[in-house]
């Protein structure tokens, strides 16, 4: 069964391209244009990985990330921040952000896919606390 990825991004254009790139890799992609919409989707369905933009109107990526980390059911879902505010060398994000990775939007497609694969593999080996 294909891994499910939740993609949170308020730029519809970039979201569409990124979603296509992920689908081409065989992932099942759910899209949200803001933090609020993402939480709605999360309450209905748990993804295997979350990719979120940082600065968004409404609920931003930081709040969303902290929210999932505070929820026992969502805590272990790998969380990738993909932001224009992260520089290509990985710097530029406050250290207290509890995401698994922070990536620049300038990251290459292959690097991003590689990282997603690693995180998904890693999380499969980890014990799940929600009983699964």
């Amino acid at each position, binding site marked *: 069964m294909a891994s499910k990825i939740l993609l949170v*991004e*308020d*730029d519809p*254009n*970039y979201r*569409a*391209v*990124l979603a*296509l*790139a992920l689908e*081409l890799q065989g992932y099942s992609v759910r899209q949200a*244009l*803001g933090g*609020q*919409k993402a939480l709605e989707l999360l309450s209905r369905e748990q993804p295997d990985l979350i990719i979120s*933009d*940082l*600065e*968004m*109107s*409404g609920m931003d990526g930081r709040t969303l990330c902290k929210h999932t980390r505070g929820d026992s059911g969502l805590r272990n879902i790998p969380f990738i921040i993909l932001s*224009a*505010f992260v520089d290509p060398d990985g710097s530029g994000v406050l250290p207290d952000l509890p995401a698994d990775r922070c990536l*620049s*939007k*300038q990251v*290459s*497609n*292959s690097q991003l896919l590689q990282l997603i694969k690693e995180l998904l593999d890693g999380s499969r080996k980890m014990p799940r606390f929600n009983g699964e």
Partner: protein
Amino acid sequence: MEDARIDKGRSLKLRDKLFLSYSLLSVVILLAAAWAINSQVVAQARQQVREEMKASLSLYDAVWEEQAGRLSALGMAMAGSPIVKTIFGDPRASRDKETIRQMLAEFDRRLSENVDLVLISDSGGGIIYAESPNADLSRIQELPGARAVAEHQHPAQSFILLGGQLFHLAVTPVILHSGSVGVDNTMAVLVAGSELNRRTALELKQRAHSDVLFFAGDRLYASSLEPEVEMQAAKTIAALAFGREASDQSAELTIAGEDQLAFAHQLSDSDGRPVGYVVVLHSLAGASMLFHAISSRLMLVGTTSVVLTLLVSYFIARRITRPIEFLVVGARELGQGKYESRIDVSPSGEIGQLASAFEQMRQSIKQGQAVLLRNERLATVGQMASGIIHDLRSPLAAVSTAADLFANAALSPEQRQILANSQVRAAQRMGAMLKELLEFSRGRYQLKIEEQALAPLISYVVSELITPEVAPGVTVEMRIPPELRVRVDGERARRMFENLLINSLQAMPEGGAITIRASEDGQKVRINIVDSGSGIPLQLRERLFEPFASVGKSGGTGLGLAIARSIAEAHGGLLTLVSANEEPADFCIELPLYFEARHGKQDSAG
């Protein structure tokens, strides 16, 4: 105008204070000098008059001496006469009045001149003979002072009040020479008197050129004055009570409208007791003419000096305060942030030094200001650059990801279409951003103002921007009176509304309502754009209209509100956030109803 403002609220200008104190000081000095000169001159003039009076008086003395001398000579001549010897030398000789009158007749020619009284006494003072045409002499028994003259065998003169008349007496001893030394005997005393009457007074006046008055006590006996002024003069002089003092006295008085100096000289009897006094009047007309001449000249010189002093002190005060006024103006301009106006004061003197120090300060502030502006500009450029970089990353990432997929993935025609569209949109967005950036960096708009209805203008923007695809779940309510017209550059106005609507859409990613209201308010049109979003965060409110204040939000350039505000201001209007904290955003645009663009005609050229 500038000067008037300097003084506002202060009582006097420094210039006026300096001017007043200089003037006051110099006027006081001038007045003091004039007073000193005047009093010195007047004192001198008085002194001169007094000297003249004294000269007159000694002239009178000389007249009296002369008369006394004449009487003495007569006495001597009589003493040597055999008839006189017969009458007075022999005690048995007849001394009846008739005999003596006959004797005197011999000397008549010499006696009659100015002699109004003849008395002859024996050596003991007993009256032998008394004769006067005017005075009643019947009661005279003894001749005062005759005994002393007889004893000392020396003539004397004195004054006497006799029978209601004032006389000047020359008392001469008639001496019988015995032949042996030291045993000459005084046979008799001869007295010749001259009445002090109008004739005497006129005679004196003729010789000394001054009026004279003879007084005994308060009573005037005779004077050289005209009868019409005599009474008044007598009263005035009597009031001065010259007779009370034994010494000579003087006083100033006015007789018949003329200033006179009166000099009183005591007339004493043979025992030195005061009998009366003679008053010599000397006109002060000459002195007062001199005084007036000097006064008027002093006045002229004084007035000229005062005027000159006032002028000079005014210019001095002006010279002192003018640079200060320049400084005040310069300081005020500096305070208003006008660092360009040079403070041009000549560098001499303390104020000049202050001015050049001030000028140095101005220059260094100006330089500092330039550095500050440059730094600020650099900071703005840095902020803009940072904003551009962040905002370009999203479309750039879309383009690069799409390109990667084109190169490396097997794509269906639909997928190719999606990616191609994405790339086009991303490129368009980057192009739009660059265009706005360029426009914003130019800062000034060339407006093509046209009067047009407001409602269709806004409707067009709304229909273009708010479509179900771009803004799902967003409803727009427009409450714009159809008759409302505005004078705007259509393209810019559309851009302004577009930016505001984009801002509202970004605040409501998951849908909501936008209300657009417009109304006419006096000379302006007011347009409110209200959305149902979460409102403007407190930390953003202050910098909301600054470039890149909301950097990082997808879909915006970070310049939208800054551009909208600059368009409103270019139309002579305002763009403000009128909603309170936490409330849904309410942006208000105010545009003047009758706006004329200054650059409207140049639009085609720009």
